[in-house]
């Protein structure tokens, strides 16, 4: 699907206005998974398909070979990867057949921005009330919070590098907001 020619990312039209250190990622597979973490049948099946041990610690990311899993709630994860979402959904459905779960391809539901560089923390401080200080938030952490007035998932993927997942209809708002937040740091000295 990521190679689908008809696929136009939601923020593409404003991407030209994005400063250094801010971009919209190209589409990837996103699958929303719900199930009972305490049920071994569930976690084993997920592991058999994805190789992932789902994080049961809130706001943590587990990384596997093809996919990573972001904790969203006690019974909900977002699987993200470069692979094929439909295939992943299908193999999860197969492996989880008969269990009480919910598997949804949500690859189009959210768009992902990448925020990086020395001012990424400043941009986040201008946009979110959450504490992204390195003492509190590190690579491997994710958090659902507000970016400006939009819901978002923020995942730290490296030092000074964040992925920000927002609902597609909000992507222009969030993209424009973050680009403007960075503007003061991109002025020539």
């Amino acid at each position: 699907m990521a190679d689908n020619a008809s696929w136009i990312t939601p923020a593409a039209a404003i991407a030209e206005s994005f400063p250094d250190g801010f971009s919209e990622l190209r589409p990837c597979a996103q699958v929303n998974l719900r199930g009972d973490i305490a049920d071994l049948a569930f976690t084993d099946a997920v592991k058999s398909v994805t190789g992932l041990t789902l994080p049961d610690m809130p706001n943590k990311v587990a990384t596997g070979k093809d996919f990573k899993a972001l904790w969203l709630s006690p019974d909900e994860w977002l699987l993200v990867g470069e692979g094929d979402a439909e295939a992943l959904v299908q193999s999860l459905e197969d492996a989880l057949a008969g269990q009480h779960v919910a598997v949804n391809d949500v690859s189009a539901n959210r768009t992902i921005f990448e925020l990086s560089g020395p001012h990424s923390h400043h941009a986040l401080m201008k946009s979110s009330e959450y504490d992204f200080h390195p003492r509190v938030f590190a690579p491997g952490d994710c958090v659902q919070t507000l970016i400006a007035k939009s819901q978002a998932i923020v995942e730290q993927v490296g030092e000074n590098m964040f992925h920000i997942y927002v609902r597609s209809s909000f992507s222009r708002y969030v993209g424009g907001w973050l680009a403007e937040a960075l503007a003061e740091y991109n002025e020539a000295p």
Partner: protein
Amino acid sequence: MTQHFRTASGGRIDRKKAINFTFNGQKYIGYEGDTLASALLANGVHLLGRSFKYHRPRGIVAAGAEEPNSMVQLGEGATTEPNIRATQISLYEGLTARSVNVWPTVEFDISAINGLFAKIMTAGFYNKTFMWPRAMWMKLYEPVIRRAAGWGKAPTTGDPDIYDHMHLHVEVMVVGGGPAGLMAALAAGRARARVLLVDEQGEFGGSLLSKKRQIGAKDEMAWIADMLAELEAMPDVTLLSRSTAFGYYDHNYLCVLEQKTDHLPAAERKGKVRQRVWHVRAGQVVLATGAHERPLVFADNDRPGIMLASSVQTYVNRYGVLPGKKMVLFTNNDAAYETAIDLQAAGGDIVAIVDSRAEPSGELVEAVRALDIEILAGYAITGTRGGKRVESVQVRAIQKGAKVYTSAARRIDCDLVAMSGGWSPVVHLFSQSQGQLEYDEEKACFLPGTKRQAQQVAGALAGEFTLKECLAGGYKAGADAARATGFTPKRKPAAPEIDEPALGGIEPFWVVPGARPIGEGMAKHFVDLQNDTTAADIELAVREGFESVEHIKRYTLTGFGTDQGKTSNINALAILSGILDKPIPKVGTTTFRPPYTPVSYGALAGRNLGDWSDPVRVTSIHDWHVENGALFENVGQWKRPWYFPKTGETMQDALNRECLAVRNGVGVLDASTLGKIDIRGPDAAEFLNRIYTNAWAKLGIRRVRYGLMCHEDGMVFDDGTTARLAEDRFLMTTTTGGAAGVLDWLEEYLQTEWPELRVYCTSVTEQWAAVSITGPTAGALLKKLAPEMDLSPESFPFLSFKEGVVAGIDARIFRISFTGELTYEINVPWACGLALWEAVMAAGAEFDITPYGTESMHILRAEKGFIIVGQETDGTTTPQDLGMDWIVSKKKPDFIGKRSYNRSDTARADRKQLVGLLTEAPDEVLPEGAQLVFDANAPKPMPMMGHVTSSYYSATLGRSIALALVKGGHEKKGQKIFAPLLDRTVTAEIVDPVFYDKEGERLNG
């Protein structure tokens, strides 16, 4: 060189950097490091403004945030700002300022005539008069009062500057960068806590900037510099100067206004953020906010040139300015003596020290005596003279307890009066944080008592009035704060030797009598300089039965000025305590409310303006709509195409064209905004049974059903279609505006009421873009786009869905209809929405496909009598009211809302019910919101039977149609009803709400 009152040397100004500025049209020169106030004083300008009520001449009283008088209109044009205190304006090149609320000039102000009426303009004046004749209040009295209202002026255009917000989390926030605050920050910083230190001034150092002190081997400036150097080197310590902590809220949340460019010349401000509000969540807060000096309340204590003693000291030491050359100091404590010593050292002349204490003693008193300055002990100032500047004072020996002094008066000429009534710790933030204040008799001030939040207090705020106490108290507060947030403080450094005078005591002296009782004669004892409140006003208020301090404040307006009473609140309270003969703690204190100092609306709004003020949500097809001339309607946060006018078309032309296209050919609508929720689990059908009013268990797989959702009170709150994807899986759609609320609603019941139900809900609103094609040729169009798909009614009946490829895109197609025509709602992944839309448009060209917006959608559905939640319903409408009993299950034992239908009012037969209306004149379109009556000639108030909820011109029907809620309407079909409008009364007939294709024959094309 015009700065006649500049000292020869000293001060923290840069004498090499002259700065040009203009005040009231006159050009002046000051130095970098000056405030507007210090620069004006250096130029001998004391008269800055006029008082509010009597328009008496007023000058600079203080040197900081507590200044009650010297408000100016700063700047010009779009960036002008009203009511800025000259004492808080850092001087910059090209600054212009004017006095406020004076006409024609501050020197000659016409309104000073008010002074003649001072005798009647007492507290409560407005309450007691302007009542007769009644009509004159709005016509004459109030307009005159309003003309006098206000100080400065708002700009007349929008603000070109940029503001923003920052959010910061720290373990320790220190408010106040004086000696105590610096030490606190150091202690916490050394313990490796994250620290924020804020100070309202341009430089850290607080009171040390105004005093000469030796701290160990360093002078005060070296000490400050070393402290800052160490703090700046700590990576997790943030230092913010020009930053005022203005609000202290629950759970250690503080707001700080950082003024980033207000001290810069205009050219250097461009493109920069002007002001930033920091939102800080702190583990611990150290308040080291210092103290403000109190004025003394004596007769005519308001003339320009009468200033706070410590402020005089600040002007001398920090700014190198002599506020006067012949000074009288009036004090009730000996800390103020230092001002006399410093002024004399700087070249001023101290004419006399008037000390209300009978036997002043102590190190400073001795030092002054050694300078041969006359000390009038046991004396008070009982009057002043001067027009636009104080010229002399009258002093008398104090007669303890007397209300009138008969002792001999002596006149002393002077051009400056420095006064000190003692110190009031700046308890504002502490009080805002719900801390309780306690009165300290010995120190004659309120101090922080019981605290409610995780905080420490230090320095003068805590009653630590010597530098030695401040340094020790500050360090301890910082260390305690760090420890409380889980850090280990370093060992306390050894206390340095500090060279400072030992202090004697203070003897409170709240109001100074004179030769006549207070309130008699022309003399005024001002308590609140800005609001012209006098001691006599307070007496009058008490006389009239006002006893609570809150009443006194409100009746006399004490503390309600832009300074919020920083120099007047305690004096007023103490004077009240004297009148009531009750100790100060028994009289109480007032609650301090944010902000500590005023904050611009622009800063508070930050970037949340325009399209940032509320997110704009758009579909993936939005740009196409824009390019094709759509006008938009806000629906919740969404932008939806309203209609697509072609050149030269009126709105009605466009709607007619769009609607007829749907009825006769094919129309296309972007339906992506509807909320979509995936509902899955073994109990999903049971869950829907409880949530919706109708039954769901038997819905076939791949079938779709319409549902109404009600609250427990039985009133409709959302609707939509839900498809059964599998035995255990449904896809629910919600209204555009209701999506988030419905998801919360579902989760609430699943998590709190029915945790036993095994159901998962997942929002997939933006997974699916939806393009709805509708009209008789919709089938032919879809056939073209999806040639493989069997569209026969047998294979693809109404209220079912199919999966397949449409225009090369994997899609899910629903056969539902909001227009009454054959309709396919094609769902594809959001990011393919535009591709699908363009394919539909291209393929539809041969069918003359017509995009339409929400307005035509509303007309088309109204022709079919379909409701819109929020239009036909208003939170007081049941399904039965809507004539939708068919959707309310009689068999289900329970569902949300069911019980409420049995209540007497909800079961009434004459509730307002949905009907159709046809106006007598077919071209007459009733206004939506028109009220309906059966007797158009009834006197007002007229019994109203209901109102028009929807009303349109229907091109399909060639006439107008309307939907309405009418009392007992279901039984009144065929009756006439009237809509009395402003200019005419419209007659209509009550009819069935389905106007078009009652049999539903068009659904299959």
